[in-house]
């Protein structure tokens, strides 16, 4: 069958069972838009900014087990998309971005809306392609989807010059793909896995530290079984929340810069640490030298060999897919007559109980102003702990991570690696589109939300009843916190002056807006908002301007060097 390049693009998307494409048209992708127009299988969501398109595709991917797809035009379309692409890259999110390019003959001529897309995106993609021949479109897209989703997932950009999308050729979608240069390992080394299981069984103070890899690998259930049968404590990183039930007694909360006291202490003072689908990131372990100060055996499971022994020396490296390695561990654990050392676990749990006794997330519940933590707690209650929660970046993000307890994977969608303000709202659109009956909340701040606020218009067009929980402290809160702590209270450019009236702004976009000033009104407002099942409700909570996120490990400090409250300052 002879088809045009643009027809082939759409056919390929259909073959990949793509339901939604998030995009924005322009000259270089007009043929592709024309073909999208002529069919109904692949639906298009018109965002208001290309950054939003990629974040939405990313949110779609993170909340499902599927690849998100974005479509943008050449030049400014691509440069606008770069923040989204880098965000997906830093959190290993499977996204395919199709971009238009100027016609082949114009490449290199400084043509109108020409940028070197492959060059600009190279350092923030898993891989990218410039398709110079219409016959290459189908195999390239096949590769793009395969690369995005397999191994350690990540964004893949496919740049298609306008003339290539117009040219015709015989079309057949490749059934499978083989690349001699790309063969991600899935099965872990059995000898190493056996060693790991033995170490865990012999441990006196075992600890499990899991990250986004558990979510990406659909391994939450296996992780939960493993932790339960080991009877040990577990912590989930920011990216790994929901990998183990947040309400379970063995869960110590999140580790790291704003992790709980008990999680950080247990990370530091365990004798065997199983790190699984996590990468000892600087926001998690702080100073690696300080982390290495205490002797403990480390088992590290990751699908990406370059994540292993990058920041921390490990004793048992296991390269493989998290789910496959976990299943192998569970099997070995089953077969092994040895049980975890109950006599050793008892004092370990006692120690942990003592650490927990510090009640590190305590905040003033009697304050006359709205405490941001309180809003998140109420959000958790009102949604029955069952909502999908996206966030922007800053204090609100940390409070959401600390106070919303995720029992299931893929319900927590946040920009961890890149820390992209502006992610929350478009990501929530992708989530809601993937889960049309679910409760979706975007926890944000008055500064972050303004970075992609234009997407309120997209939400109106596609009737996406997201609940925006704006923790409005009139400050770039996280910046202000650092300035207070490390820059002598000099609040350089961190006050957000001239804020809009968000409730009225939401109304101007055709949504419902609410402003909440008093603690006593928080719960009622949330209930009212979630009752409005068809409406996007913008909840503008006027929160305490001076509240800080605690605990806090200062950048570059050791993990146990925590500021627990303003009294420690």
């Amino acid at each position: 069958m002879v088809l045009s390049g643009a027809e082939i693009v759409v056919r390929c998307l259909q073959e990949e069972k793509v339901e939604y494409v998030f995009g924005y048209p322009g000259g270089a992708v007009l043929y592709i838009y024309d073909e999208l127009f002529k069919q109904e299988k692949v639906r298009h969501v018109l965002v208001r900014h290309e950054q939003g398109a990629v974040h939405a595709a990313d949110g779609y991917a993170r909340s499902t087990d599927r690849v998100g797809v974005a479509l943008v035009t050449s030049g400014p379309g691509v440069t606008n998309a770069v923040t989204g692409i880098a965000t997906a890259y830093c959190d290993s999110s499977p996204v395919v971005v199709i971009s238009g390019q100027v016609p082949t003959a114009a490449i290199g001529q400084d043509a109108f809306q020409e940028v070197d897309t492959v060059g600009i995106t190279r350092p923030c993609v898993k891989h990218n392609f410039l398709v110079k021949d219409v016959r290459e479109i189908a195999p390239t897209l096949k590769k793009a989807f395969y690369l995005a989703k397999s191994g350690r997932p990540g964004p893949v950009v496919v740049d298609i010059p306008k003339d290539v999308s117009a040219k015709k050729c015989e079309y057949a979608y490749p059934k499978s793909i083989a690349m001699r240069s790309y063969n991600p390992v899935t099965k872990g080394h059995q000898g190493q896995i056996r060693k790991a299981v033995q170490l865990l069984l012999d441990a006196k103070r075992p600890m499990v530290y899991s990250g986004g890899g558990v979510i990406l690998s659909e391994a939450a259930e296996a992780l939960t079984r493993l932790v339960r049968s080991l009877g040990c404590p577990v912590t989930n990183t920011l990216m790994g929340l929901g990998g183990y039930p947040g309400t379970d007694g063995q869960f110590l909360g999140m580790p790291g810069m704003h992790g709980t006291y008990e999680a950080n202490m247990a990370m530091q003072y365990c004798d065997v640490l199983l790190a699984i689908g996590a990468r000892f990131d600087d926001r998690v372990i702080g100073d690696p030298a300080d982390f290495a100060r205490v002797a403990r055996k480390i088992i590290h499971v990751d699908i990406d060999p370059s994540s292993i022994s990058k920041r921390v020396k490990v004793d048992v490296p296991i390269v493989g897919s998290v789910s496959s390695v976990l299943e192998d561990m569970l099997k070995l654990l089953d077969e092994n007559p040895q049980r975890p050392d109950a006599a050793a676990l008892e004092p370990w749990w006692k120690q942990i109980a003592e650490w927990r006794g510090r009640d590190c997330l305590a905040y003033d519940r009697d304050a006359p102003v709205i405490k941001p933590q309180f809003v998140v707690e109420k959000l958790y209650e009102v949604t029955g702990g069952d909502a999908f929660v996206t966030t922007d970046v800053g204090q609100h993000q940390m409070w959401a991570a600390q106070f919303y307890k995720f029992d299931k994977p893929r319900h927590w969608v946040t920009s961890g690696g890149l820390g992209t303000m502006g992610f929350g709202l478009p990501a929530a659109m992708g989530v809601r589109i993937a889960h049309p009956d679910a409760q979706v909340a975007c926890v944000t701040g008055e500064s972050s939300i303004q970075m992609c606020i234009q997407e309120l218009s997209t939400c109106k067009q596609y009737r996406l009843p997201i609940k925006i929980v704006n923790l409005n402290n009139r400050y770039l809160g996280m910046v202000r916190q650092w300035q207070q702590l490390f820059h002598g209270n000099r609040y350089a450019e961190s006050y957000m002056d001239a804020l809009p009236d968000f409730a009225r702004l939401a109304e101007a976009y055709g949504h419902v807006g609410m402003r909440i000033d008093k603690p006593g009104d928080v719960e009622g407002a949330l209930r009212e908002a979630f009752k409005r099942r068809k409406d996007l409700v913008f909840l503008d909570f006027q929160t305490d301007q001076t509240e800080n996120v605690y605990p806090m490990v200062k950048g570059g400090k050791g993990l146990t060097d925590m500021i627990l409250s303003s009294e420690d300052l």
Partner: protein
Amino acid sequence: MRHVISLLLENEAGALSRVSGLFSARAYNIESLTVAPTEDASMSRMTIITRGSDDVVEQITKQLNKLVEVVKVVDLSESGHLERELMLAKVRAVGKDREEMKRMADIFRGNIIDVTDSSYVVELTGNSGKLDAFLGAIDASLILETVRTGVCGIGRGDRILKI
């Protein structure tokens, strides 16, 4: 420590920039980099000379392996290997220096491949040390220009880098 990293990669537009981009993005050191297609035209072979601690070099090889177009990576300096580099040196060759240059080229087993009444172009191959030694042995004021290919390397004996 100095390492000689050899890799096979798909002979595709942009593959080289992925490798060089990786080195600059991660602040790895590149002393030299050479690349050319192999006997199998679909594949290129690259030799990179880099310096770094064992940890850094381990990361370099892992990161290189992660690039989708890289087929194979070995650190040749882990065992016996050969290194060669080619240099073309244009030197002043007048008066008594003319004879002296000819002698130096012979001593270093170089070839004079271009002759004018005032200059020679000397072609020299060897490991980098030998080329440096040649440049050190002649009067610096006589060197008009030099160009070096950078090192290419191959394992000794049974060590073969092929797919």
